[in-house]
């Protein structure tokens, strides 16, 4: 009886529409990015130069890597302040172990980053300590560890072309780090949209009790987002180190957590969790980078770009605020 009448019409067409609906929250951010682009194209000299685009992408790559992990964390309703320090520890670990081979150094650095992230996750999920507290503690401790590893935070320069390739090399016309960023972003989009795990991340953030009753392993899901965030921060740390040709435990990744959170929020992933848009995060990061770049190119003080960024964050959150029911 009820099957007829106003029943659902599900077919290939409605399935395809899912794609667009998923991007809906990012439309605003996309519009802002386009606007920023157009204004710059008119106002800023040499803005449309290929080199300029490449520079923007180069500069934004570490932030995007970190922000992708942050998107997953924030989708579960959490936050990860420790990413910058994880970058530093990965950088220090890689620098001191380069002598045993590039592969060894990279893997060891990534393992350390993964372990720190996993520890964050265990403390948050199994011991029920607030994410902001746990990761704030990591932010402080882990950079301390990074400085200890690098002899009290000294600069560790190295001359290793194979490692430097990670931050300075090219594949065809594309810089290696831009390629890495593209691969990570593509994988993150795929995992969020097409895998069981991605579905669980959104479910845990959307309604934890309901997810638990439906058989979602909530602890495991949460631990894994922090582990992932740690791993991606480690990767970003390696790229930064390779680009600089030295490890600087005091500076690498400093304040990047703020840029990453800003990118996530501006991109349309709500801080309350339950909904994710990796594409939005990339757009958010690009907006922030373009502002910095265009202010630089127009010779306006860097300080002003900070003010504009702050305003954009506030506006983005204001637009996304939950509608009063």
């Amino acid at each position, binding site marked *: *009886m*009820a*099957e007829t009448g*106003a*029943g*659902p*019409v*599900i077919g290939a067409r*409605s*399935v395809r*529409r*899912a794609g667009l*609906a998923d991007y809906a929250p990012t439309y605003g951010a996309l519009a802002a990015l386009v606007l920023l682009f157009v204004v710059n194209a008119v106002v800023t000299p040499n803005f449309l130069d290929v080199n300029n685009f490449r520079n923007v992408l180069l500069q934004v790559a570490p932030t995007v890597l970190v922000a992708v992990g942050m998107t997953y964390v924030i989708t579960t309703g959490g936050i990860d302040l420790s990413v910058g320090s994880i970058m530093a520890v990965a950088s220090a670990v890689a620098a001191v172990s380069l002598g045993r081979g590039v592969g060894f150094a990279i893997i060891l650095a990534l393992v350390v980053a993964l372990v720190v992230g996993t520890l964050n996750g265990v403390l948050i999920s199994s011991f029920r300590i607030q994410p902001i507290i746990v990761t704030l503690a990591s932010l402080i401790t882990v950079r301390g560890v990074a400085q200890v590893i690098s002899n009290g935070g000294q600069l560790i320069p190295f001359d290793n072309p194979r490692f430097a390739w990670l931050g300075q090399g090219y594949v065809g016309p594309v810089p290696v780090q831009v390629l890495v960023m593209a691969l990570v972003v593509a994988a993150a989009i795929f995992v969020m949209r*097409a*895998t*069981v*795990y991605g*579905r*669980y991340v*959104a*479910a845990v953030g*959307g*309604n934890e*009790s*309901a*997810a*638990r*009753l*439906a*058989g*979602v*392993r909530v602890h495991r899901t949460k631990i894994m987002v922090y582990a992932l965030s740690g791993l991606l921060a480690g990767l970003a740390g390696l790229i930064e180190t390779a680009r600089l040709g030295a490890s600087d435990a005091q500076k690498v990744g400093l304040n990047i957590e703020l840029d990453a959170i800003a990118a996530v929020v501006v991109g349309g992933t709500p801080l309350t969790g*339950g*909904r994710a848009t990796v594409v939005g995060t990339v757009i958010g990061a690009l907006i922030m980078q373009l502002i910095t770049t265009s202010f630089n190119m127009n010779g306006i003080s860097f300080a002003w770009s900070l003010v504009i960024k702050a305003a954009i964050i506030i506006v983005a959150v204001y637009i996304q605020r939950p509608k009063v029911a």
Partner: protein
Amino acid sequence: MSNAPLLRMEGIRKVFSGVTALDGVDFTLERGEVHSLVGENGAGKSTLIKIMTGAYQRDGGRIMLEGREVNFRSPEDAQRAGVVAVYQEVNLLAYRTVAENIYLGREPRRFGLIDWKCMKRDAGALLKRLGLDIDPAATLGDLNIALRQMVAIARGVSFGAKVVVLDEPTSSLTEHEVSILYDVIRRLKDEGTGVVYISHRFDELYAICDRVTILRDGRLVGSRSLAGLDRLDLVCMMLGKQREELQRQGATAFGHHDGAATADESPLMRAENLTRGRKLDRVSLDVGRGEIVGLAGLLGSGRTETARAIFGADQIDAGRVYFEGHPLNLRSPNDAIDAGLAFLSEDRKAEGIIPELSVRENLTLAALPALSRLGVVSRQKQNEIVERFMKRLGIKASSADQKIRELSGGNQQKVLLARWLCKNPKFLIMDEPTRGIDVGAKAEIQSLVNELASSGLGVLMISSELEELVEGSSRVVVIRDGRRAAELRGAEISQDSIIRAMAEDDTGVVGNANAAAE
């Protein structure tokens, strides 16, 4: 003047966006009286309390305190006048001392500074007056929940409260702590304070209360003295049943179910001695294949706790659950789910839907492992399942991509039911499956459950609607005050017998007096 009641509420009306929550309710509280307010879900108890204590504004009616008309604009307003509420979740500062909490916002001052000595002394005197052995200098967070609650009451009394409202004060207390609470209440009573006491436990009502006012669907059913009030009459009033017409009525879509034939084989699910604090006390029950067993009980009786314990959703202190002869690990729902159990929770919003996700994502949530390979969800399998179940259950949505929060209650419930049915469960626990959904969806769900049971699904169904239990179940287990009170089968099942089992006290005598009158 002196013969005016302490508090009188007359013809109180409250409408929330077009829905009438209270419709002409009267309530009278005398000095030194402990007055209980009872009613099932949606009766309007908490709305009435909130109007009484200034948290809500009434849309109609009058409130008189000691004969004078009052108009509370806020809880602070009511507090100043002497009407104080102490809520379930104690609203105090954990890191401050007991004395500071009692006088928060009204600290005694000397030369513009807080007079700590005076505050401690006054707090100590007040606690002693209530018969409480609590150090006023102790940090509140170091006290257990019961003592914290007593501090909250002391805070209320320190305002010079004439009326103290206790909303489910015992829900997290132990037996011993309850007796401390009773002592405090008796002292308040002796001082002439009026106490409004809300609890779902009948033993408590009869132990501490003088009168009871019964509400149902926002209306006043009646107000009675508890001494001499038959429990059966009380339950009938709460449920809105006339004692004369307690019989089958045939208003649901279950049809007659006679699954009792399968009772000879070993049960599909057997729960033994489930125990959890004061909420569950050695509850045992079993359900066979193809059987629908009803789980009856008043609000707060422990029926939901029983269901959650079987599913592993809450930690229990003792007890076991056997499924197809094997014990279940009750630490998390996963073991139960893997074994073939399913649980449709009571509160759709808090424990059912993932609001921001689509109908498709909500529907497949529990079945994802089966719909995926190497962790990647198969679009084809997923869409097939979603399409099949949306059709089968008649789920009305603009498309499978619509967010579930935009659907009607009935359609949300169908999606949640489909979430489990698409896993082909062997045993389905349903907690109030048809609450708050429209008549059409209700009938569809009822007949679907009946159909599934006849093909072998075991069902445990909690319901506040007696018709649903009577017509849907082959057996009914009745829970009362956390204990298993009765099991009814076959011809024994009637609204009358269920209500009697809900109402009887442990001696089983109280109901009889009126049985003769029928």
